[in-house]
């Protein structure tokens, strides 16, 4: 297992190098905007532009720029400095990461806690009103775009503009270390909104898995040995139906840790997603590189974690 993980990590490093090259090509070689132009302001004369280019290192050959970028990461763990604010990319990410982690992990708890009972109950009581309500609600949840749901939630429940001012609204995020209670309340709406789509997807997936599993022979065996229906469904059924969901949850969480752009934007949460979005608007290439690499890192780590978790959850996988 250790050798397997090591191999996966090495592959992950190779993958990260490829991702960095790809981002570099997309933003430096085929730029969407000229960072020097953006910094110089209107009516800048060519001399100023050239000076800015030189100070940012943009006048050097592309290969040299990429080489500098790579060696700085590898040798100094240095992601460079923002063109826009001048702050180091590393410190920007460290500042923003807690908000994204808070949002993602909290939402993940909500969607797992909501989707598992919904999926199990609607599978065990297929065709009843519980099932129909869940299936219908899931369709809504999957169809509704997150930014629309977010705005709707703010319109209904935010304490500044809401019809029923129950929860803090947009821009109310407070770091956990400053005030845990305010941190918690400010994230209630974002958690629910971000979790809604995932709840719907997971509940539907689990329902499908459960229906399949409940017709398996070993479920009949469980009934034949006199287990209660509750135990049959929640132990034997769920145990087998939940494994694919664990995989999916790992990947989704990894993806969201790279930045839940829409939710962060709607609720004004200063997370990685917003950082990335702002960097693109400002053609702030070092920050773009940093956030993209971070996201790729999360996805790669999530993949490794999921594979290891899968081997733990399904003993049949371990031998391979």
């Amino acid at each position, binding site marked *: 297992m250790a050798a397997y993980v090591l191999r996966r990590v090495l592959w992950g490093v190779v993958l990260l190098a490829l991702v960095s090259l790809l981002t570099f090509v997309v933003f430096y070689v085929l730029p969407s905007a000229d960072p020097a132009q953006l910094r110089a302001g209107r009516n800048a004369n060519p001399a100023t532009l050239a000076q800015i280019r030189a100070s940012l290192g943009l006048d050097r050959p592309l290969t040299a720029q990429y080489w500098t970028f790579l060696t700085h990461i590898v040798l100094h763990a240095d992601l460079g400095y923002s063109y826009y604010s001048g702050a180091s990319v590393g410190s920007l990410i460290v500042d923003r990461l807690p908000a994204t982690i808070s949002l993602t992990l909290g939402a993940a708890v909500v969607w797992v806690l909501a989707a598992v009972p919904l999926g199990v109950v609607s599978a065990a009581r297929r065709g009843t009103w519980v099932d129909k309500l869940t299936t219908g609600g899931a369709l809504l949840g999957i169809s509704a775009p997150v930014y629309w749901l977010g705005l709707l939630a703010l319109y209904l429940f935010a304490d500044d503009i809401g019809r029923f001012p129950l929860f803090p609204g947009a821009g109310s995020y407070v770091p956990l270390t400053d005030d845990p209670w305010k941190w918690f309340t400010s994230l209630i709406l974002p958690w629910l909104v971000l979790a809604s789509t995932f709840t719907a997807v997971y509940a539907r997936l689990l329902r499908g898995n459960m229906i399949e599993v409940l017709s398996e022979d*070993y479920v009949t065996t469980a009934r*034949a040995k006199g*287990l209660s229906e509750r135990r049959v469904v929640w132990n034997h059924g769920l145990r087998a139906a939940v494994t694919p969901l664990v995989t999916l949850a790992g990947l989704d969480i990894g993806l969201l840790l790279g930045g839940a752009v829409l939710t962060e934007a709607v609720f004004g949460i200063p997370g990685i997603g917003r950082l990335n979005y702002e960097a693109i608007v400002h053609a702030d290439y070092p920050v773009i590189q940093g956030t993209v690499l971070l996201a790729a890192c999360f996805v790669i780590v999530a993949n490794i974690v999921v594979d290891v978790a899968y081997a733990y959850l399904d003993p049949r996988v371990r031998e391979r």
Partner: protein
Amino acid sequence: MSDPILAVEDLRVAFDTRDGLVQAVDGVTWSVAPGRTLGIVGESGSGKTVAATTAMGLVRGARVRTSGRVLLEGEDLLAASPERLRRVRGATIAMVFQDPLSALHPLMRVGAQIAEALRSHRSGMSAADARARAIELLEHVAIPNARQRVDAYPHELSGGMRQRAMIAMALANEPRVLIADEPTTALDVTVQRQILALLRRLRDELGMAMVLITHDLGVVAETADDVAVMYAGRIVEQAPAAELFAAPQHPYTWGLLRSMPRLDAPAGAELVPIPGRPPSLVHPPSGCRFHPRCPYVRERHRSVDPALEPLAGTPEHRVACLLSEAERRAIWARLAQGAPR
């Protein structure tokens, strides 16, 4: 012979499907006494498994229509509440399934699955006691290294070992009745004999009644005291095993016997498959249900539905066939000599 412990009386089971009402079991009556084995024989789709799983209350639901009685020690299980059924299942009446790989939970250790069977009927039993008992049970079904195997997952055991573990689980609470549904079909031939021998040994040790469901008359010949032959949801012939093999009466039984390899068959006798396929249970054939496949069919058989009736000389031998007893004896005498029909 003692009184039956499990008696199925005029059991009918139908499934409401999109294609229509599937009459899987159509008026079946059998019983089994402690220490004895009833073999139920038939092709797939003959209703033999549905009858047995219905007896255990495993076939229930909005789309299932059931009538008749299933008497376990005199108590009608078809009328029992779900909680009452749960208490009976695995405790008084237990079941062994065809394919132990799919019948054991793939993600749970074998010992844990046995311990669970124990503890679901003995609320006071500690986890440690249940585990110790699980090891004993595995030893009892002759699994070597039971102390290690108790922590194995099903996929880590061989097919024969898995079926032994399955049997250990079924026997955990020393049931009075064991239903074994094709317990050897998924296993290698050499392992099949070991498992049958194990089942016989346990039946005798525990004084259990055993219902052995199979499509293999060879398995029945070795193990069963009584035999019921099922065809299209009904019993077409029922007799003590020795009597059935000595003087089979139903053309379908003849077909089964002639399609089975035997060492005592006359030299040159060929294995003869039964022509045709099992009939639709949504629109069963008119008259005798076997008539479309029967080599001895007469015009009358297409419209008259034969009842299961005792033979004149041997009342414990019953058959549902419109041929006269004399005709049947004459035909079987010819067939037993190796005649083609």
